[in-house]
């Protein structure tokens, strides 16, 4: 099962750190909320973990990774 970034939407405040840490996979919509583009490839799992850890509202989760 490939890894995926999931957003806890009610928790997300659109601070945008995830898009800075992981611009390869996360962009921001016109209100500053993350748009996640596809699954997390193997070589980005480390950065995805970093993005989840640094989210100020802990609204990002990496799911399905070992």
């Amino acid at each position, binding site marked *: 099962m490939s890894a995926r970034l999931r*957003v806890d*939407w*009610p928790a*997300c405040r659109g601070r945008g750190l995830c898009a800075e840490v992981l611009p390869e996979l996360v962009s921001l919509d*016109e*209100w*500053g*909320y993350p748009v996640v583009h596809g699954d997390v490839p193997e070589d980005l799992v480390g950065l995805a973990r970093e993005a989840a850890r640094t989210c100020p509202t802990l609204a990002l989760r990496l799911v399905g990774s070992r």
Partner: protein
Amino acid sequence: MSAPVLVRPAGDGGGPVVAVQPGAHVLRGVSAGPSLADHRRRTPPPPALPLADLVARVRDVDVRGRGGAGFPFAAKLEATAGAGRRREVVVNLSEGEPVSFKDAALALTRPHLVLDGAVLAARALGSRVVHVVLPGDRAGVAAAVRRAVDERGHEDDRVRWRLHRAEGRFVAGQAHAVVELMSGRPNLPVTGWQPVALHGYRGRPTLLSNAETFAHVALLAGEHRAAYAGAGTGEEPGTRLLTLDGDGERPTVTEVAHGTPWEDLLTDEALDGPVLVGGYHGTWAAPGALRGVTVSRTAMAAAGLSLGAGVVLPLSPGDCPVHRTAGIVAYLAGQSARRCGPCRHGLPALADAVRATDRGIDLSARAGALAGVVTGRGACAHPDGTARTVTSMLAAFGDEVAAHASGGCGYRPPRLVARSGGSGR
């Protein structure tokens, strides 16, 4: 056809009178009265079926969830059973969609059929408690269910009943919002990292299904099972409830066998006009698109449509699908729980784009883009459903959008569109 039973879901406080057409299975004998005594004259108490037997019976006729998503009920039963030993059963009667009245109709005419189905599931799962979630804004329904549950005190159901009252908002019936309500928190959607079947009320496996679903399950317990299985088509046995004209003065709830042609249900006038199928989170059928199609999951999917929770809204004569969609999206934007950013910001923006398009400023491209942007980005499917209605309007009525952009409308008389103030007539 026998005379419909008239019920008032809102109680004495107003709201539409709903006509419930007697049916062959779920709506059989609706005129006989809603009491337990009336019910037991026709239907014996539910037997204690072992889980494997109940799953087999449900699978045999492929009962699917009637809350809108259409998930196979047998798989939900098995998932709940496999996820732990203290299992919860929840009957979701909240029916947050204002133009759907099928669950209200059941509560007011055959509440004990719904409760029988819940008892059947609870006993198969070894659950001691059945939770019933009542609508917040339909006092008549809530009172009818309270009365029915009080009557169950005289039965040997071997379950305790626990009632909860949902808030009267569109998203209140969403599964995770219901678990929040039951847990004493605000009745709003939260992120569900797992389905409630696996991790629901108090973290326990929770069988949460729509009231109509339990009514169909109840029919599989007794003698009526063969007749029910013989209804519908080989591929989709059984029946389903539809709410017709839920936005009109006299909504009608009717039981329809799968495979019934739409020509048997709607007038020529309705068939040859736009029909919003599936409710406010639904899909628009272009004029004539329902001709040759049947009430069936597969036939509807082949036509690019979905029955959702069974709401069928033919457009009123003189109304316009673009205008109607603008009103619906504005309403849905107001129903957002306002917790998730893309919904809180995106739905008002979407409503603005559709309203502008209706008024002749063609923002249909922006509406389409916004529909894409909000989809899949919320704790619940409210943004997805709202986007679906908009997307289907744009797909079915592209010509009409173009007509609006050049100052016209093919549906509403020009004077109604063009006039702003003036003569006062």
